[in-house]
């Protein structure tokens, strides 16, 4: 099959479920022979999942529109005057009209058209989790661009396993906590069921519930593959969503402690997470060693460039020992 024969448009349309049965067959046949197109479709679906609209996007967009209006480009055509009540009303009417128009178009369209419009605007997954609906967030610049912080996220916490060590050497395995809720029903759960339940909670947006189940999984089945994998996931969620770098560090340390464990190739993520957690905690020497370890073990990692950049920053700040075997390259 020649490269020009790649059905790129079929691939694009397949992501919105618009293919006829004949087109699906054509695409299927092509994908069996063309790895570049398989990769393209796979990565495309990765982005479809990640770029769904967030429930605070409307607020974010209205702020940007206001900023554009007051900018030189917008101001050349719009009044530079401070928005009056009528102006604000116009903005609200505009927003309402846009939403109404979108709703009408989506509602009146055929199922295929609805899917297309929905996906284009990222509306397919717009239904926010129950815990996050109606949450109005602060509009600080940093907060605006972050994913929705739901009530569940803001209250995310997990039991502290142990006090953080000063030097952040990999800690010894903690004893199984006796404080975890243990009901007969829970006892009957297999590791896979527990893992699936935790994943389902995470996907629904119940981060606190998911983390609790992941922790329970780690305590009940500490040697299982699912437990090994969950430590990296919980660590990243803790680091990125709740900002608890200390607890996140514990997760990454535990994930890395068992060298022979099957973590489905997630060691890079664990090392990257550990270094990031140490950076957040302000332990430059440990952080530097963590970045160096990442580069040493995974020199071609997608995180290697960032590791080198950060190492250069640490050296500039006087935290390098001058003997680093992985000098900054950027």
């Amino acid at each position, binding site marked *: 099959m020649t490269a020009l024969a790649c059905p790129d448009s079929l691939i694009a*349309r397949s992501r919105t479920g618009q293919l006829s049965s004949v087109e699906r067959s054509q695409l299927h046949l092509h994908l069996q022979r063309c790895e570049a197109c398989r990769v393209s479709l796979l990565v495309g679906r990765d982005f479809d999942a990640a770029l769904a609209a967030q429930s605070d996007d409307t607020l974010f967009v209205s702020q940007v529109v206001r900023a554009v209006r007051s900018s030189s480009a917008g101001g050349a055509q719009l009044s530079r005057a401070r928005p009056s009540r009528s102006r604000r009303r116009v903005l609200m009417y505009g927003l309402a009209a846009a939403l109404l128009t979108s709703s009408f178009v989506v509602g009146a369209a055929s199922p295929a058209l609805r899917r297309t419009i929905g996906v284009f605007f990222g509306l397919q997954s717009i239904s926010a989790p129950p815990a996050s609906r109606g949450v109005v967030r602060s509009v600080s610049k940093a907060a605006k661009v972050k994913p929705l912080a739901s009530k569940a996220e803001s209250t995310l916490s997990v039991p502290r396993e142990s006090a953080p060590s000063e030097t952040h050497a990999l800690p010894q395995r903690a004893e199984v906590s006796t404080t975890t809720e243990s009901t007969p029903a829970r006892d009957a759960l297999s590791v896979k069921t527990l893992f699936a339940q935790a*994943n389902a909670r995470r996907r629904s947006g119940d981060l606190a519930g998911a983390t609790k189940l992941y922790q329970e999984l780690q305590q009940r089945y500490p040697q299982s593959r699912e437990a090994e994998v969950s430590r990296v996931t919980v660590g990243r969620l803790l680091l990125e969503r709740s900002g608890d770098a200390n607890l996140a560090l514990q997760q990454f340390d535990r994930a890395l402690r068992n060298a022979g464990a099957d973590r489905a190739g997630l060691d890079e993520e664990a090392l990257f997470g550990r270094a990031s957690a140490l950076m957040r905690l302000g332990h430059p020497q440990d952080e530097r060693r963590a970045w160096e370890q990442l580069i040493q073990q995974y020199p071609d990692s997608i995180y290697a460039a960032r590791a080198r950049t950060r190492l250069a920053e640490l050296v500039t700040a006087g935290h390098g020992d001058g003997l680093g075997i992985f000098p900054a390259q950027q």
Partner: protein
Amino acid sequence: LRDGILVRNMALRLVGMPAQQDPASAVDPLAAISIAAAQGDPQAIDTLLLSVTPAMLRAVRGVLGGGHREIEDVLQESAIGLVTALKTFRGESTVLHFGCRIAVLSALAARRRLRESGKESLDAREELPLISSEGSPVELVLAARRRALLRELCDSLPIAQSEALVLHCMLGFTVEEIADAGQIPPNTVRSRLRVAKETLRARIDAEPTLREALESRP
């Protein structure tokens, strides 16, 4: 409407239908308002931006990463670029595709600018979407790694290839939509996509974990 037939066919392609199959929905719903906005009508500009900016936000997030600190600035820059460019917009594509292309080019330029100035933040890392169709944490992390890999690829590919890859792979544009938005021949788009996709495949091939995940897919 300017170039009504052309605009209608663009809209039909957007919804995956052959041209002229369904005349009732054959109009870019934003075409008329874009004309008014180009003439400086403030309400039209407001409505246009409120309609198009969500899709542009998606494009900027795709290129920069969900947690990037520059998203707001780049989106604002893109929206200003759209308002400015409306004066020369001739309806070659839908307004939505036109705006998304501006957003993608702005975001790609911002990425390269940040990288060259050494100001790229570690906080620009990929975030894990909580609400996801991914089946397991492993797939979640691997998907995040693939997205990060594509973004990094955009920094090293020629800008024209990066643009085609982003519009197609991240945003799901068809070849025709990319061609219309950029006013280039479809075969040029196919050629750019072919090279960019092959580079992406080679990068994923070089990562054993990603390679394994690809092979395990049906």
